[in-house]
């Protein structure tokens, strides 16, 4: 389980340290406050434990700095000399940290420090679900990505790799079966794949993913990740804006599944702009569920974070404030100068 992430002069951040919950971490904040960067930083440090890729290479492929110049990831300033981020995780009751540093003036701009060897010895299954759906684009994409140097953040190729993992050999346990049933009910079918192409299969036949609503594709993706055992006890799930293309009704199912996965031991990291998803967590979570809301905001141009376990204590709550701003304009329009 991850315990903490810290940034120093890295991408959008000057200096930021975020405590992480072992359950569900929900990042909210205006555009440009670094939500996706946090998710990506978490993901790359987990992915290397199973892919055994170098962290620098993974960061390069996931963050995609222009011309693969990694020093571009140092926060822009008058003297952008160096920057780093570090992640701390708990292994066998002991906290270990790795740090990825960038220095602008060295021939080799990247260095790794901390308990890197120990970090790699303990694999951490991880998934990053990007904003755009890739399931419908899966045929041929993997081979194209592997053969050609196409300009795509690697999270898009990785998610396709995850869905093509073989089904877990062990039989599906009762709790996972329950989750699969909920999703099957919502999608009205199961997912099958043929030659890298996905279909929703039910009594009516097989419907290709390209003809499915994007919201249903998202449920299908979750179904596969649960069914093939990727989202199992101890796994890490990073999901960038789950609300995209999902109607509020399906959102309640997604939140139900995410809470259940957390109860099964999956550590979850979400970014969201959506009121419904926040309220869903507030309403569906039980007292025993472990949630942490992280509000990212700008203070004198620096990004800061405020973390709280309780929905009502989220401050600043940019999502609620966006409704507040609409209400403000309505009040101004309706009331004019009355009361002022």
């Amino acid at each position, binding site marked *: 389980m991850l315990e903490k992430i810290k940034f120093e002069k890295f991408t959008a951040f000057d200096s930021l340290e975020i405590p992480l919950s072992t359950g569900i971490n929900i990042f909210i904040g205006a555009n440009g406050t670094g939500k996706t960067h946090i998710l990506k930083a978490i993901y790359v440090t987990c992915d290397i434990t199973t892919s055994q890729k170098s962290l620098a290479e993974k960061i390069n492929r996931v963050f995609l700095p222009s011309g693969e110049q990694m020093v571009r990831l140092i926060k822009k300033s008058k003297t952008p000399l160096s920057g780093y981020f570090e992640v701390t995780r708990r292994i066998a009751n002991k906290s270990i940290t790795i740090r990825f540093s960038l220095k602008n003036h060295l021939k080799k701009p990247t260095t790794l420090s901390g308990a890197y060897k120990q970090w790699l010895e303990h694999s951490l299954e991880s998934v990053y679900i990007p904003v755009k759906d890739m399931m419908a684009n899966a045929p041929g994409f993997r081979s194209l990505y592997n053969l050609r140097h196409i300009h795509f953040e690697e999270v898009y190729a990785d998610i396709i790799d995850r869905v093509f993992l073989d089904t877990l050999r062990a039989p599906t346990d009762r709790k996972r079966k329950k989750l699969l049933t909920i999703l099957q009910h919502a999608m009205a079918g199961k997912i099958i794949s043929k030659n890298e192409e996905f279909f929703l299969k039910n009594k009516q036949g097989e419907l290709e993913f390209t003809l499915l609503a994007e919201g249903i594709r998202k449920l299908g993706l979750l179904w596969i990740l649960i069914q093939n055992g990727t989202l199992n006890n101890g796994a890490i799930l990073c999901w960038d804006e789950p609300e995209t293309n999902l109607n509020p*009704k399906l959102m*309640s199912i997604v939140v139900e599944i995410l809470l259940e996965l957390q109860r099964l031991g999956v550590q979850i990291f979400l970014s969201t702009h959506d*009121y419904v998803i926040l*309220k*869903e967590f507030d309403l569906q979570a039980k007292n025993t569920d472990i949630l942490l809301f992280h509000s990212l905001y700008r203070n004198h141009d620096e990004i800061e974070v405020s973390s709280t376990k309780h929905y009502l204590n989220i401050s600043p709550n940019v999502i*609620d404030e966006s409704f*507040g701003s609409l209400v403000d304009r309505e*009040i101004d329009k*309706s009331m004019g100068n009355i009361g002022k």
Partner: protein
Amino acid sequence: MKIEADGFSFSFTDAIDAFIFDEKYKNQSHYHGLSQAMKAVDIIVELENDYLFIEVNDFYAPDDYNFQSAVNDEDKKEKRSHFNHLLEVLKYKYRDTWLYRWAENKTDKPIVYLCLLTLDNAMISALNNELRRQLPIGKAGPRWNREMARSCIVVNIERFHRHFPNWQVTRIKQDA
């Protein structure tokens, strides 16, 4: 001018008059006397150019009305029904109050309906749209020459503080 209603204390510095509209005590000058027949808003404030009808509701369980965040169809139906009931209550309180004031010959200035509800901004936004349509505000009917309500606005405490610096509202502390 200070006044208390539904657990809140108000102060209207620019008011000509402010009183509890639904006054239940006969010895008070603003005794309502028709509570059994007509619904009523909590407070009426007379300003120089307008009347304010103010309704105050401090909710114990605000999420009961939050149909936008229902977890399933049944929940949505129930919450939508609570929400619609709240809309009906707010609507008829205004209309009955307006009738009462019309009979008093006190509809001589434009009337603004202000609902102070302890709900979040998203709920407030949804209520604003529907209440305005249902009240209705302005010269809504095709044959109307007068308006029944100049405007209507639903606010929470935070919005009240932000938009009405001439008026104060504080929650009255309850004894333990």
